[in-house]
């Protein structure tokens, strides 16, 4: 139900944005042609979708995880986002060790986690940095 509303809002936004582009071009249809049609169709479909999920009682409420399961999904997502934010600040090596350690430490002893995190990070640093020549992000200290 909420998802259906989300979809219709998404398509409505894109439909309004599409109106900016010209519907016709110099030779037939222009850049606005596809966006207007697609977002319009999507808007209509989303209404059906809302209807469908309203009729179907045992819908999305059951599907979303609760409690511990939901927590661990969020945990992984938050770790990823933090990793992304920290990478340009701490540099690739420190951020990666931290990221891996946080994920490992939930299931293993802290010293094993640190060990694996450090080894994996340096392996990746070597593989991407030296073998594949990728410029990995560095911290202000240059590492």
């Amino acid at each position, binding site marked *: 139900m909420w998802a259906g509303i989300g979809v219709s809002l998404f398509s409505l936004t894109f439909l309004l944005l599409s109106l900016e582009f010209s519907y016709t*071009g110099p030779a037939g249809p*222009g850049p606005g042609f596809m*966006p207007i049609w697609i977002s319009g169709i999507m808007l209509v479909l989303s209404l059906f979708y809302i209807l469908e999920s309203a009729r179907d009682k045992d819908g999305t409420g059951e599907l979303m995880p609760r409690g511990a399961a939901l927590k661990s999904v969020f945990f992984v*997502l938050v770790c*990823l986002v933090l990793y992304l934010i920290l990478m340009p600040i701490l540099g690739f090596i420190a951020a990666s060790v931290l990221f*891996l350690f946080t*994920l490992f430490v939930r299931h293993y002893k802290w010293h094993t986690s640190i060990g694996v995190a450090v080894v994996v990070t340096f392996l990746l640093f070597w593989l991407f940095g030296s073998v*594949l020549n*990728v410029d990995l992000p560095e911290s202000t200290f240059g590492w």
Partner: protein
Amino acid sequence: MDSIALLLGGFEHALTLWNLLYCLIGVSIGMFVGVLPGLGPVAGTALLIPLTFGMEPTSAIIMLSGIFYGSMYGGTITSVLINTPGESASVITCIDGYQMAKQGRAGTALGVSAIGSFIGGVTAILGLTFLGPPLAEFALKFGPPEYFSLLLLGLIMLVGLMGKSVIRGLIAACFGLMLSLIGMDPVSGAIRFTFGQMELLEGLDFVVVAMGLFGISEILLNAEKHMKMEKPSTIQGLLPERHEWKPTLSAIGRGTGLGFLIGLIPGANSVIASILSYSLEKKVAKDPSRFGKGAIEGVAGPETANNAHSGAAMIPLFTLGIPSSPTVAVILGAFIMHGLTPGPALFQNNPDFVWGVIASMFVGNLILLIFNLPLARVWAKIAMVPYEILFPLILILSVVGVYSINSSLWDVGMMILFGGIGYLMKKLDLPIAATVLTFVLGAQIESTLLQSLATSQNGLLIFFERPISGVLLTLGCVILVFSLISGIKKRRSTLINDFEL
């Protein structure tokens, strides 16, 4: 007989040291991905695309397609030994394969599926060798209207065959199309939906979207549940008993034919092939009650079918540029990134590439046969690597992989965003495959539609005035109507819903 000469030339290409090595790496990763329950072939291919960037196109596609058909072999091992399918095409193998393992016949189950997979795979590639060139020649006659109709038909089939509701399928398809419109329009130069972000000017990167939607979302989904492994059964003796050879071989034959045909249909994935093969075996068997209690045909048929499918799925890709399953869509994305346009012209413009890849698939299947017959025990051990160790490694590898494409953290952020979107889509039964397919084909769909309309005097009627496109579109409409009706009557099989990958 041109094909044979060209194929031999292809072997020359495929048997160079480096390409052999990439083929070996590809099928090994495929086996690995297939064996691991938490990671399917789509996620596997999507996550490894960045590693192929520095490679030559031929080597890159050799490796990626190796992952695809390699995973079909690998999935069997865990299905038989621990009753957990390594990837969804082997779900059906659990039924009789695990029963066979319980009776101490795990070795036979694995042996039979390896032999069947090899026969199915090689037959399908032979099909590609001989059917590919004439089909491509035929498709060269296609103009924009025919192409547009073909693309539309493929999409409708995909939407009609997958997921719970046609409406959700269509929404997912429209979503993919909208995403493909982001960035500069190649025809008019208009800049669309970038929200002022410079990074979006060239559109969303296919790898970023595919890795997020397929790879990251898969990991998020797995984070919900606790993965517990059973101890695998021991493996003894790999060959069936003498009286079993005949039924086994005929099951393999039927599986090959069925898998091949289904591979040609856009939108029908390997899960459908193996499920249909299982029910076919049950129907033709003299004593159907043996199924579910360790019937050898119930292992041989489906396992052959999913491999024949993965080989045959390359035919529409190479000849028409249309992917028939999500994994092939990812490979199609890799084609485009390496500057190749999949489609009928491929056989003419890049013969070295085409025949090199085809030849490598023969080689790869041979390597896989060796992997699976004498080395099955080794792979069974790998399946026991705990998921808690694996998933952080997969995550960091995908982050670094995506970053390495453009050295941009923006891409990493987009991947995480699409990972979240993909997770929600999986939860809501919106088929991700439809989104990725339309996203890959979006530019082509728009340009063929606009070109057709620009040359048409009667607007949309041009699609029905030309015979080939008229037939294709009518077919598409019929399928759409039928799947809508079956959706209303709630007759859609629940079996197919659950295994989208």
